[in-house]
């Protein structure tokens, strides 16, 4: 069962998933750089950014998915356990935040390694993955599926969730929750355009208004690090106010990424199926 085009049911006025891409020291260490001095932004994630984000999200009572590189989980196991204990989803985000192309065997090994690390820390299966930097290979979805993952959130090719078919077998499909790292993400504004926090909020509100009036599906991503991230007070406040703004709209439903992917699996008739490649 599938739909010609994904269409969320009428009573789900708008589905919202929030993601925090942990991006601790792995981001620098994976590039061969010691996370010290100006390269220490990732150390802010566990120390300040993640606790601040969890406090803020907890006050709103909304779900959120933390996408965590395996290396960062090894560096900060207690933080990952706190994320899980606070009821937020822990999902996979590479091992050393690999923002470069991987050979199939190495990729398989790293996906398994991170899955094992996160599973050990939370005591629960990992259900989703977001590529660090958006890179995937023809192999990636097969490995994720073999690990029991139900969704990927890395593709940029659509405004709505869909069922991504990556092979002919009955098991060869996965829920895709596409994201956009040019507008519905913090780093373009804080890394490139030095946009004042209030203008980032205005930008995201405009994005939400348009989405609420059309596709009704929002994937918003922030990073808890310092530097180009949103862990610091002024920028966490942007996400805080953004959530408050979204909540004012009738019929909005917040989901964890896994929660929404499960909804998609339970309602296949609402999802378009797309074969890629």
């Amino acid at each position, binding site marked *: 069962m599938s739909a010609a085009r994904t269409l969320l049911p009428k009573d789900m006025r708008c589905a919202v998933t929030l993601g925090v891409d942990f991006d601790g020291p792995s981001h620098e260490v994976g590039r*061969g750089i*010691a996370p010290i*001095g*100006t390269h220490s932004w990732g*150390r802010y994630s566990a120390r300040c950014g993640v606790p601040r984000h969890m406090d803020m999200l907890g006050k709103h009572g909304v779900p959120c998915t933390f996408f965590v590189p395996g290396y960062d989980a090894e560096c900060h196991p207690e933080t990952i356990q706190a994320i899980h204990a606070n009821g937020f989803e822990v999902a996979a985000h590479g091992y050393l935040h690999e923002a470069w192309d991987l050979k199939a065997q190495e990729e398989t090994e790293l996906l398994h390694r991170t899955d094992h690390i996160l599973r050990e820390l939370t005591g629960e299966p990992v259900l989703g993955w977001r590529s660090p930097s958006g890179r995937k290979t023809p192999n990636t979805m097969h490995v994720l599926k073999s690990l029991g993952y139900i969704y990927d959130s890395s593709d940029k090719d659509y405004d709505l969730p869909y069922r991504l078919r990556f092979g002919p077998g009955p098991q060869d499909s996965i829920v895709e929750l596409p994201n956009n790292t040019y507008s519905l993400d913090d780093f373009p504004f804080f*890394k490139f355009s030095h946009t004042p*926090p209030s203008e980032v909020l205005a930008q995201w509100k405009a994005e939400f208004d348009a989405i609420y009036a059309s596709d009704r599906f929002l994937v918003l991503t922030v990073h808890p690090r310092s*530097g180009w991230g949103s862990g610091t007070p002024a920028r966490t406040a942007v996400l805080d106010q953004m959530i408050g703004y979204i909540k004012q709209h009738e019929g909005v439903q917040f989901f964890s990424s896994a929660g929404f992917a499960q909804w998609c699996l339970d309602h296949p008739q609402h999802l378009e199926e797309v074969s890629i490649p």
Partner: protein
Amino acid sequence: MKTFAWPQGVRCAVFLSVHFDAESYDLKSTTEDRLFGRFSYGRYGVRAGLPRLLAMLQRRTLAATVFVTADDARRHEAEVRALAEAGHEIASRGADLRPLPELREGERASLAAAHETLATIAGRPPVGFRAAGGELSSGTLATLAGLGYRYDSSFQDADHPYVFAPTPGARIAELPTVQALDDAPLYSARHTMARLDKVWREEFDALHAEGCLVPMTVHLRGDMGSTRAARIAVLDDLLAYMASKPGVRFVTCAQLAEMTLAQDLPGEPDPCAAHQATLAVTPYRGDLSIKPI
């Protein structure tokens, strides 16, 4: 675990750190005999910018922390001495602005020599350090502690000062900064003063509301710095705005380091140690970053 706390009645502290970065910066791109034309923005900072900054700080009775390379101090001895005599803190930025990791086994000798130069010119030894480009090597913190430094201010990883114990028994305060409160990234990207003013006010308001350290960084230079007449007015207004808020205390970095070291905080271990095994088998990919189209 004991965590950093402000003194009674203080909601947050503000420090104004100044990067002297005169010819030392231009010499990253040219040679001594070519310090003119496009390579004279550093000299602007000393000739035009410094008197303006000094006057503004004197009017505000505000003491700044000025990070100076030994080479710049040698070129501008009278100016550095005048800064020290006016009550500003002279802190070390190393010998020149070459990144420390490039110095390899020469790093310690270079930092020690810069220390001696600055001590002689400023009349007292510097107690604080901020690395050129924020680039440290794995041995820098231990070297600084060994030279008697009380603080480093090169990290960007915390809301409050903390303490490193880079070697057993050694203690050095870390005064972390935030990129958003540095004028150079904004002005070097050719943003307007209005934009910088908006970013800084919003960042300050949020840091003040949460009682975090407010680490300001400005440059003397005429290109990416804050000493042009119009730009220093923005800084002046912003400092007045901060001073008008309840519980704001202005400190020098040296004062903040003493405040931090007096609190008996646990010393964090060498920040490189946990990553050494992985770094040893990871190729350098530092040039890998997203560039605008």
